């Protein structure tokens, strides 16, 4: 845990959500402001988390996260449509929705498998206090699977998922 500090600590800056682009350019730089007050409000905590996240996540993982956000959006849209306009072709709705959910879950799994050891070099901000135990644990678990293997698994899972969806869509 090399001490990494952004020049201007943005702890109290409740500015609008920073775009991920600065983080993309400087993935190594992390603003680990541990100076969050214990009695901070929920909104402050949220922004704090967001800044931490944006500045510490490597680009590949961010790509996955963007995809996951997109899937959440797609799933949510379908759900809203189902609620608003009725679920008449229920098969179609189900397969569309579960395709989104399933892909989300698979991507999350891929993210867990790859980001564990990917950020293992020390840019993970969470190895302090009692959280360290968990991180160590998960890193120890993550070592069993290489990135290539994880990606192959991911493709395998997605293929099955989409086969089922296409078969179910009627």
């Amino acid at each position, binding site marked *: 845990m090399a001490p990494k500090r952004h020049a201007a600590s943005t702890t109290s800056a409740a500015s609008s959500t920073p775009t991920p682009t600065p983080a993309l350019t400087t993935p190594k730089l992390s603003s680990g402001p*541990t100076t*969050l007050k*214990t009695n*901070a409000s*929920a909104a402050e*905590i949220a922004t*704090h*988390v967001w800044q*931490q*996240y944006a500045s*510490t996540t490597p680009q590949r993982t961010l790509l996955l996260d963007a995809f996951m956000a997109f899937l959440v959006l797609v799933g949510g849209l379908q759900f809203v449509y189902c609620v608003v306009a009725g679920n008449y072709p*229920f098969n179609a709705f*189900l*397969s569309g929705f*579960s395709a989104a*959910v*399933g892909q989300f*879950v*698979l991507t*999350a*799994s*891929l993210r*867990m*498998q790859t980001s*564990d050891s990917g950020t293992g070099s020390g840019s*993970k*901000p*969470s190895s*302090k*206090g*009692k*959280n360290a135990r*968990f*991180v160590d*644990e*998960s890193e120890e*678990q*993550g070592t*069993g*699977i290489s990135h290539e*293997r*994880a990606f*192959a*698994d*991911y493709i*395998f*899972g997605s293929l*099955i*998922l989409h086969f*089922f*969806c296409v*078969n*179910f869509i009627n």
Partner: protein
Amino acid sequence: MAPSSLDVVLKGSSGRNTRGLLRVIILCTIAAAAVSSRLFSVIRFESIIHEFDPWFNFRATKYLIENGFYSFWDWFDDRTWHPLGRVTGGTLYPGLMVTSGVIYHILRLLTIPVDIRNICVMLAPGFSGLTALAMYLLTSEMSDSPSAGLLAAAFMGITPGYISRSVAGSYDNEAIAIFLLVFTFYLWIKAVKNGSIMWGALTALFYGYMVSAWGGYVFITNLIPLHVFVLLCMGRYSTRVYISYTTWYALGTLGSMQIPFVGFLPIRNSDHMSALGVFGLIQLVAFAEFIRGYLPGKQFQKLLTSMVLLTFGLGFGGLVLLSISGVIAPWSGRFYSLWDTGYAKIHIPIIASVSEHQPTAWPAFFFDLNFLIWLFPAGVFMCFQKLKDEHVFVVIYSVLASYFAGVMVRLMLTLTPIVCVAAALALSCILDNFLVASTPSTETKAKATTDDKSLRSTRNPVVGIYSWFSKSVVVASVTLYLLLFVAHCTWVTSNAYSSPSVVLASKLPDGSQFIIDDYREAYYWLRQNTPDNAKIMSWWDYGYQIGGMADRPTLVDNNTWNNTHIATVGKAMSSREEVSYPILRQHDVDYVLVVFGGLLGYSGDDLNKFLWMVRIAEGIWPDEVKERDYFTARGEYRVDEEATPAMKNSLMYKMSYHNFQSLFPAGQAMDRVRNTKLPKESPQLNTLEEAFTSENWIVRLYKVKDLDNLGRDHSNAVAFDKGLKRKRATKHKGPRVLRTE
């Protein structure tokens, strides 16, 4: 001790190979033993499909082979449940038929001409061999000991609890489902251990296969989420659990929805809701873990509490709302009867009437599992000692399955695998400790004695069993138990579980075997002597057999999807002829089949099931059929002189005892099942005539008479034929017309 040549083979790298080879050979032997111990019935009788449900599966398989997969999928069967028909393709679990269909086509491709019947007969033993292998894999995941897996495989291969459903010829869903159950669990454990998407996806695939094969898949659907839930509660969340569970759930649920019979159940039925709930929960936990990475403890707790409260409130409210509005179906009846054993008896007599849904008697546990049942708790205890993720699974599985096995006889089948695992764990531990003939090396002994000064708790005394006497005693007794187990299993299999129940066997006084083949005799008579679309009415137990063996349309069969229709048949059987005849005419019944064991003492006959017919009919027509009427004033169920009028006039009673008295000298007629003397007079049947009675009177067939040519009612016509004088009153009234249309 061992000769040096053996040492070369057993030690070092070549030793590993030798042991691997030995293991393969042992496994093959176990599989062979598993297959061959299930062949008693084929050797003793013939290669024949057993019991009831397998006959339907066999018929469906033949349909699949003849008409191809797509028409099987869309099969509307108009030869059952006349006149309703049954959407068979959409209301069965196709896994079994498709499996044997695939095997059939593969064998054909290899130019091995084999009859589909033989495939169906041999499918269950074949898969039991595979189950033994899957068991080896599953148990090997649980234990480091090399012997545990082999022991478990051997136990699984020959334990009667599993053989009872997988002898040759018992071509039922369970035949392949137990293999799939064990293998799915193996894959699941593997997935949890490795945390890879691939194992999770494979689990989902085999889960989908399991769903296509057996209704018992709900057990997996609830057990895996429960496992995950308990892991979460123990604070053992890890990415491995997340990856394997979510992959399994997302793919497995979609996979299970591919089966038309299951359809939307996984998202509608409450049986499946726990899986969905845990899926949501694990997402939240994962998200919380993710957030936790970015926050110091205090704020995290604050955030967590608010999140937990919010989601719990939302989820609970949503569930209640959905349940009330009826989007989520209430729990199924069979499920309720799992919690409240009296439930089915009160609400759903049709479930309670099936003998395999009865609670298990205590001796059955020992009968089916022998000494495994008392090794079982020891094995579970050992799982508590290690308590890794996979051991938690064993503990949960054993608790749940023990409860369910106590509730329903047939669920003994789901208990058997875990009993084998636990017993093998316990036994392998015993053997590993007692069979190794090593003494502690002097070095370790010295170590143990030297550091006397250190704290007592930090000392490391040499603990072990080194006396030859205790070793030999324990090993000898374990060997004895194992031998007894094998003997017991063989005995049980050959005596209790290898009877086809289509063909009965009994012993003559001189000890020779006497084959009673009445069922097939009667079904073959039907096949030969009746028109192709003659409708046969019988109690639902025999529906599948009539469809399979006699190839005639039936009114009701073992599928029991339409309670009202079954109640109609029950009403026709339990009412007076005047009431029954219109029912028979309305349903185009040509023949009525009853099973009667009075001559031979065959206790599974229709008169013994009669009360269930009455009860089921009473459920639909409470004011026309009353159970009370069939008991005497003292509350006895009698068929002799003192039987109630309702009993004596019921169609079932008349059909059973019609002409039975003529077999005996006057007044000597004896019913050997119920051990009672029968009335002197044979009951008078007016609207039916006897068509066929099998050799031992087990199956009796009656033809439904057509309307009388002269427009008389049947009792008058019969009376006229007998030469009795017609009563004048009826003449003036004119013929009574039976309204059948």
